[in-house]
């Protein structure tokens, strides 16, 4: 973590209002994004992030090391997500037990020590991502951008580009694999955790 961020995290522990605002402004979008990847529900994700910040604030002064501030925040968020996954499973009377298992597995696969909030959208990663996208074939890049950045459905893209849906899916898959490769260099700790 950068030095000035560390200073800010120290002020967060001391309860400095400006620092808390900084933390919120910086991490709320990432946390929202992370939640939304699981729940695909904007208002639920916003609520979970809100709750996490409120919980964080109740205990912020107990954090000893400023380096841990963000992972602590992420830890809270991850636990809230787990709680929500379980609550949903109960509401659905466990009709989809494997979806619950899958979501629990995913959530517990993000180690909070090396937390994704600091990694995700860091400058290096974003430029790595951009480079990877540039290296894709024209069609693949086009499809990735329609699907991901514009949020179009696969069948809509197929119709628009006049190709089969199967082709669209294959291109998205191929594109993501390339992107994954490009990110690999940046996530050794995560991989290490999973392999160990």
């Amino acid at each position, binding site marked *: 973590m950068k030095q000035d961020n560390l200073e800010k995290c120290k002020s967060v522990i*001391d*309860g*400095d*209002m*400006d620092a808390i*605002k900084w933390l*919120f*402004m910086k991490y*709320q*979008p990432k946390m*929202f*994004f992370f939640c*939304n*990847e*699981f*729940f*695909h529900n904007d208002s639920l994700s*916003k609520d979970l*992030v*809100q709750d996490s*910040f*409120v919980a964080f*604030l*109740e205990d*912020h*002064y107990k954090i000893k090391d400023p380096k841990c501030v963000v992972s602590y925040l992420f830890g809270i968020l991850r636990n809230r997500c787990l709680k929500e996954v379980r609550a949903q499973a109960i509401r659905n009377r466990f*009709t*989809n037990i*494997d*979806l619950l*298992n*899958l979501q629990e*597995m*995913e959530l517990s*696969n*993000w180690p909070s020590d090396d937390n994704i909030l600091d990694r*995700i*959208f860091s400058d290096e*990663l974003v430029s790595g*991502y951009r480079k990877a*996208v540039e290296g894709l074939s024209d069609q693949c890049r086009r499809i990735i951008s329609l699907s*991901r*950045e514009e*949020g179009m459905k*696969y069948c809509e893209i197929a119709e628009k580009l006049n190709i089969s849906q199967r082709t669209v*899916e*294959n291109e998205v*898959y191929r*594109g*993501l*694999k390339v*992107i*994954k490769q490009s*990110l*690999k260099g940046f*996530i050794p700790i*995560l*991989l290490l955790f*999973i*392999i160990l």
Partner: protein
Amino acid sequence: MDKLDTKLLLKFLDGTLNEEEASAIYSWAQESEENKNYLTSMKEASMFSRYEAPMKKADTRNEWHKFIDKAGLKENKNNLYRSFINLAAAIILVAGGILFFNAKFKNSIPSSEQDTPLILETGIGQTASATLPDGSIIKLNSCSKLAYNPQMWRKQRSVLLIGEASFDVAHDETRPFSVQMSRYKISVLGTRFNIDSYPGSEKDYVSLKSGRVQVNIINKENSQLELTPGNSFVFDNGSGRYEIKPTDKNQFSWENGEIVFDDQTLVQKRAEIYRLYGYTLQISKGCSGMSYRATFDGESINEIMAVLAKITPNLAYRIDDGNKTVTIWKKLITPSQVSR
């Protein structure tokens, strides 16, 4: 590793799995760590590939304002000392032990940082809790103010209170903790107690939960009283008389956000309802004598009035949201007479 079907993988990444597909993916992931790892890294790649739209959807600025409302924070330029409530710096005039909070001074810049007391203040319907530098925890009821001077704190733990608060004081024999009230002073070493001293109320109540507290009446010699747990020091603001009585069992119910009617009338609860909801009750004579036994836990003013009207056949009310008043009167005919 068996290859995972592309379609299935994409559905996983997009969160559109149905039951059967979720089972298929889950059992595939369970086959090996490698598979699990693959899913996680694909998910991460997928997250990356669509980051711009959700960043806008996150609505961060709005969410921030929602958050500070929810947490009872106030955006200001001063540091909060390990508390998350609105500590607004202000200048307090302390004259002859009597405290004046002057709203006009609130936003002016203090002449020197040294003498700037920290004020913790709650509005209508708000409660707040704060941790003081020594670890003492204070919970503030609605429409209350607490102030202390962080500069003086090292030497003496002294706070000023208007309204109601409960204290959980950290033990420190070298520095007694004191609460200055206008007409008496409370000193403790480490204990839990509650002070109920709203301006305009007939009586003040200092109630002890555990430990020991001393009460000294200001300007009166040999007036030291010692309070034991389960008892309250009751100070009559009119006559200046005081006594020690067993604590009312509902003295602490506000900490759980409850309003308790214990054979009490709406007239007796009027001030409390105003502090919690901001509504003024206008009660006609015919209704002022009726007492109730009820506990409300987070209900709105509309719900409370609806319940009271239901259990009181001839009670009628009208809520005026514009002027924030509730008018309560006695119906001349009861519903049973109407139906006849």
